């Protein structure tokens, strides 16, 4: 049984101007011990999705579909069961979590709080467990007595991971875990997450906008745009031979050092990630797409199989549907900057 199974999830936020769809029909599966990377930029709905797994959405949010955590639908759970399930079956390390630590309490106490909320654990027992957790994330146990400001960014991120592991969840969701970190610390944190996944048999959902990070760390990648998954498949294939033009843009955004094609030639897309309140319609990527055709603004998207055999590769692009993946692969690199399409005001 999969640890996490998301079926046709939709999430909309209520605003004064009406309902804003943040997630528009997402399917995901994650088994124990597996790492899945979710790639996307601001506004694509990835953080909403992560919050939806633990039903941590603001009041008034409307959801549809189901989120099965070890077979139970989180969206249909009663509040008592939900509280019990949170943290013990799945835990999240939020974006900017390093700043989510209470500055006037010692980190050890904050981790112990997570433990003691979920069981009648005595202070001494909790302290021992806190020490274990810190060691697991590569920090010496005595760091439990430190205050957040005494720790560096990387150390604080490790504390957040320790906190997430406090109740031995089966699923760990990390939302932009390395965004504010230096590349060396990023490598340390990613190596730690990989190791923990292996040692503890954790299912790991890693969310970031840096596709190269996912390609190096995860087994499978799903790419989100405007609330929908636009491509998914094995990590290396998706990164090296993207089937969707957006994936290709993401892949090229962070260049491979040594690749002459990107030397003095930064790749990117014109325009901006779409505002969920004002989506273009059809394939929402079409205004920025280098290979869009007349059919795209009114196309009804679904994930079509891409790539040979049962590789599990799918992409929501008309060229994939029509069996012409080379159009995406060999698309001309759109000149960016001054000659780019004028910005939508």
């Amino acid at each position: 049984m999969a640890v996490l199974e998301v079926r046709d999830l939709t999430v909309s936020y209520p605003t004064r101007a009406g309902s804003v769809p943040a997630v528009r029909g997402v399917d995901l599966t994650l088994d124990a011990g597996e790492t899945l990377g979710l790639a996307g930029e601001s506004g694509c709905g990835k953080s909403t999705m992560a919050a939806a797994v633990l039903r941590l959405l603001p009041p008034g949010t409307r959801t549809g579909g189901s989120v099965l955590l070890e077979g139970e639908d989180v969206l249909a759970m009663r509040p008592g069961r939900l509280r019990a399930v949170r943290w013990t079956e799945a835990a999240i390390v939020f974006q900017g979590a390093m700043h989510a630590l209470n500055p006037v309490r010692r980190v050890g106490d904050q981790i112990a709080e997570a433990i003691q909320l979920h069981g009648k654990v005595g202070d001494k027992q909790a302290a021992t467990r806190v020490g274990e957790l810190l060691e697991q994330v590569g920090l010496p146990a005595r760091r439990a007595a430190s205050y957040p400001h005494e720790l560096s960014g990387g150390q604080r991120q490790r504390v957040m991971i320790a906190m997430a592991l406090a109740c031995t969840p089966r699923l760990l969701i990390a939302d932009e875990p390395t965004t504010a970190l230096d590349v060396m610390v990023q490598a340390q944190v990613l190596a730690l997450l990989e190791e923990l996944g292996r040692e503890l048999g954790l299912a790991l959902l890693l969310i970031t906008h840096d596709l190269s990070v996912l390609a190096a760390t995860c087994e499978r990648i799903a790419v989100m745009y405007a609330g929908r998954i636009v491509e998914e498949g094995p990590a290396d294939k998706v990164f090296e031979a993207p089937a969707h033009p957006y994936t290709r843009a993401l892949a090229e955004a962070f260049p491979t050092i040594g690749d002459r094609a990107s030397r003095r030639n930064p790749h990117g897309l014109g325009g901006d990630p779409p505002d969920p309140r004002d989506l273009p319609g059809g394939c929402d990527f079409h205004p920025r797409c280098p290979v869009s055709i007349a059919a795209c603004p009114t196309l009804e998207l679904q994930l079509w199989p891409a790539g040979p055999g049962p590789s599990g590769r799918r992409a929501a692009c008309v060229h994939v549907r029509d069996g012409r993946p080379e159009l995406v692969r060999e698309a001309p690199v759109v000149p960016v900057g001054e000659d780019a399409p004028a910005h939508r005001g």
Partner: protein
Amino acid sequence: MTATQPAPAASPAGQEPILEVRDLHVHFGARRGRGSTARAVDGVDLQVRPGEIVALAGESGCGKTSLARAVLGLVEPTSGQVLYRGKPLGRAQRALKPYRREVQLVLQDPTGALNPRQSVYESVAEGLRIHGVKGDEETLVADALARSGLRPPRRFFLAYPHELSGGQRQRVVIAGALALEPAMLVADEPVSSLDASVRGEILALLLGLVRDLGLSILVVTHDLGLAWNIADRLAVMYLGRIVEQGPTETVLADPRHPYTRALLSVVPEVRHAAPQILSGEPPDPTRIPGGCRFHPRCPALASGAAAEAGVDDRCRGEPVPVLRGVAEHHAACFLTDESVRKEGGSRVGR
């Protein structure tokens, strides 16, 4: 080649550097004698030639931000010189005002860099008003916005920062800098807080400015990929010193300093030779290790390679000399750089 002379080496382009930093030190002092000095920049030589993009790379705490601020005159150096077109910077704010027209700043966080109560027009016009630039203000603002890719410019005049996306805000910041028609830009992490797909166009914009307006740019970043994308030369900083310097392609293709090698090995990629993940984090600038400042974390020392070459004692005990001269590719390492190995013994370093 021993590089002990203070005069700048003649560059292949045959041009005098537009900006030169000589033996710069920026120390943040102890408060009333308590605590130790943080030596954020601890002896740096750097040059930027006209029309060149120089990337200053390193992790947080390495001093690159302090160096950039010192170059802009926003922070007073403890010692050493910053020379613009051969002339040293003044100290007083008033003396720096004419300099400000020539060298402009692009900050990391475009959201914070714009006053949320000022419209785009007012933000871009601010520099013009401060310096009392003559000419039709509206046209100058429109030109600057157009040059940063916001077209049609008049449509953006009345926008407020919160109505724009991250990429657009960064373009407004760049337009504000361009309005003064500077000769040089100092960009501090210009794309690190922007979305991945937007990164490319801002970098392309910077490249375009060099190509079309002849600007020189000093980019401060922690992202080596950015240096690969746009920089002509790359200087890698660690704990207040430049540890490797040279043309970008040479440094990234054949890194000589163990720190640069480690950094390159952990840049995320699908298939990697075993990444050298350094343990721990760079020490505090108040507690700089003796000898080579990188030696406690150096993989070459830990693996015994330094011992085999017979330099391990020097790594632990002898301070590495400051890198001087800019034409060639060199690294501040006893093990990998011959000139440094030879020079080290003949100087009493700091």
